[in-house]
């Protein structure tokens, strides 16, 4: 509706022409990137596929973080900069669950007769749930203490508060009796198994042995990350699309005053949204720490920013957009590290943010008509 009205405005028409210019630039860039990808693929198809798998692993972790940004933004129009630090707390929560309480192995201790893979899988699910619950509670408290009193304040106040909360979580975590300011080695909750996929079929690579040439290595860590992410994404989609809470969330996102008139507890829904987004960040923390097993009190900043870029790329406020955007960012990062140069990875990821904001500020799946509040 809005778009057709806007087209008659000469000023907006000029903006659209500029947009077209930008699109031309983007197409040229896309062709260049595709050409580079194609030539890289031709140069070594298996290595290329391996790098794509590496990118997927990263992209799925980003997706879980990006969903938190996107859900909160969709409802309260707040970029929750403390989200990356909630992710860090999630990673630490799982560290304590694994290193202190051996929660990844609890079932195999209670029922030693169960097959190990099954009891370990249930143990890992327990660890993820511990992190998710911790982060949900943390986000609930943060929302009540820091954001709720500012609900009717200008948006910039809430944004600055979010930055304050972010620093608080980092440097409270850095205290010697909390997480300390040291690098902490993370104990992976599962033992690494590498599968070799080659023309000879699929088999388990014995530890310490080199994979045969022209084969792809797929580890159970990648599998674990992709499966957990997909399951959580389906859960979230179900929650938002098929439940009463989800319906209330969508109504709140669409029009808060009307939602309130319809009897929806808007404040409660906002709290739930924060908690759900944070619980996904908590799960992402566990997955990230499993893939890159080291914890540090500021470890959330960079993944948080990358996931934010992914959310903007996908269209902030859009749930499928967060997934697609994250996968693109993960691949862009790993492939540019592999085929341009490693230090380029961050530059490429953040250039995407600039390009999106210039060319299509609403992102891939964004809805321009929603931008009205």
């Amino acid at each position, binding site marked *: 509706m809005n778009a057709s009205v806007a087209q008659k405005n000469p000023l907006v028409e000029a903006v659209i022409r500029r947009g077209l210019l930008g699109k031309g630039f983007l197409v040229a860039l896309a062709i260049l990137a595709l050409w580079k990808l194609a030539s890289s693929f031709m140069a070594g198809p298996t290595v290329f596929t391996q790098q794509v798998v590496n990118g997927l692993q990263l992209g799925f972790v980003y997706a879980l973080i990006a969903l938190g940004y996107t859900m909160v933004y969709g409802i309260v129009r707040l970029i929750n900069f403390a989200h990356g630090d909630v992710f860090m707390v999630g990673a630490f929560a799982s560290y304590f669950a694994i290193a202190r309480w051996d929660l990844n192995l609890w079932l195999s201790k209670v029922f030693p007769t169960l097959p190990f893979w099954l009891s370990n899988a249930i143990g890992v699910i327990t660890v993820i749930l511990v992190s998710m619950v911790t982060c949900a509670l943390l986000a609930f408290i943060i929302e009540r203490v820091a954001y709720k009193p500012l609900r009717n304040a200008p948006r910039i106040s809430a944004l600055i508060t979010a930055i304050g909360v972010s620093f608080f979580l980092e440097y409270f975590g850095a205290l010697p009796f909390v997480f300390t300011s040291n690098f902490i080695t993370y104990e992976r909750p599962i033992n690494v198994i590498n599968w070799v996929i080659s023309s000879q079929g699929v088999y388990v690579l014995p530890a310490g042995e080199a994979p045969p040439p022209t084969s792809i290595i797929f580890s159970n860590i990648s599998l674990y990350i992709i499966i957990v992410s997909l399951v959580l994404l389906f859960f979230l989609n179900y929650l938002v699309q098929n439940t009463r809470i989800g319906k209330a969330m969508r109504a709140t996102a669409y029009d808060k005053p009307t939602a309130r008139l319809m009897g929806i507890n808007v404040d409660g829904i906002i709290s739930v949204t924060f908690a759900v987004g944070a619980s996904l960040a908590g799960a992402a923390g566990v997955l990230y720490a499993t893939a890159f097993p080291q914890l540090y009190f500021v470890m959330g900043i960079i993944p948080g920013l990358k996931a934010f870029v992914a959310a903007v790329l996908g269209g902030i406020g859009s749930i499928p957009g967060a997934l697609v955007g994250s996968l693109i960012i993960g691949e862009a990062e790993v492939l540019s590290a592999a085929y341009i*140069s490693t230090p380029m990875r961050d530059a490429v990821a953040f250039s995407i943010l600039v390009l999106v904001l210039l060319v299509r500020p609403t992102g891939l799946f964004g809805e321009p008509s929603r931008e009205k509040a």
Partner: protein
Amino acid sequence: MFKRMFVVLSLLIVASMILPACATGGTGGGTIKVGLLAPLSGQVPTFGQSTKEGAELAVKEWNAKGGIRGKKIDLIVADSQCSPDPAVNAANKLIDQDGVKFIVGEVCSSASIPVAEIVNPKGVVQISPTSTNPSVTVDTNGATRPYTFRACFIDPFQGLVMAKFATDKGYKTAFIMFDQGNDYVRGLAEAFEKSFVELGGTIVGKESYTTTDTDFSAILTKVAESNAEVLWLPDYYNIVNLVGAQAKDKGVTAVMMGGDGWDSSDLDVKAADGGFYSNHYDPGDTRPIVQQWLKTYGEAYKDAQGNPKVPDALATLAYDATNLMLAAIDKAGTEDTAKVAEAMAAIKWDAVSGTITFDAQHNPIKAAAVISVSGGKKTFIDSVAP
């Protein structure tokens, strides 16, 4: 009233300046004074304590043997705080008030460099036990400071040693990973590359990363693809932990090697399993001189529980540095500092951290300890000389 106080104060100040000088003149005959600059307070007081213990033990041993040409050695310790200004003040005090002509110290490069700048014009001999920055012994014009030496090897030297170690183990191909923003890491990477190629090896890949990187999957896929036998990763333990863990799930079989940045109790021995790193010294070294040193030190110093203390690298290098200084004085046959510096430059001394000779830049040429990480333990395996 005010005037009289001023006169009294002035007199006091003048007196305070003259009196110590008199004292120095009076007792100069029977002893050789050696100054020690150690950071006993400030950021790294434990470094200072270890250094002091090492140096004191060396002096005690020389005195027990009858000193140098019948003269006892008098060690004067000054707190230099690992910081430029306190170190320069302490050095000036040692030289001007105590009449010291030989200084062991400082521990930190940032303090040793300004000290080197004041001792050289004064012709005072200095040896730093542990300062690894190249500028300690070389001035801003690239000329070697005539009176300044060090007992530790400089960082890039470890690249050379490990290239030799890798070649001796029969490895022919290496992949280099380095942090482009870290001088220490870059220096070790360049030194390894140069030496490994000179020794007949091939560098099959070289990738840089940034300090904040955590995802090394792209590089490690390349490492696996290159079939390199050695992965040279001369970074600090935290990066080693991350890379090592990820290498295990990318099918990397290359042997990881690095420098003393790996030396930490926080090194993840599971992630770094199968790797090797170099260090200044390791108590597991079986050479008799090391075992003797462990015994002597353990007898002299006890920990809080009363058990013998194990000397760390700082104590060991301070012991070596003090011994080198005294040996040079002994060899020169005089306390003339120019002659002592000359004797030091030409010395060959069996130190705990390896037999030391000096190169043209006054950096020691000596063996490094190579430590293997295997089965959850860090074990000394060899002492490798370049």
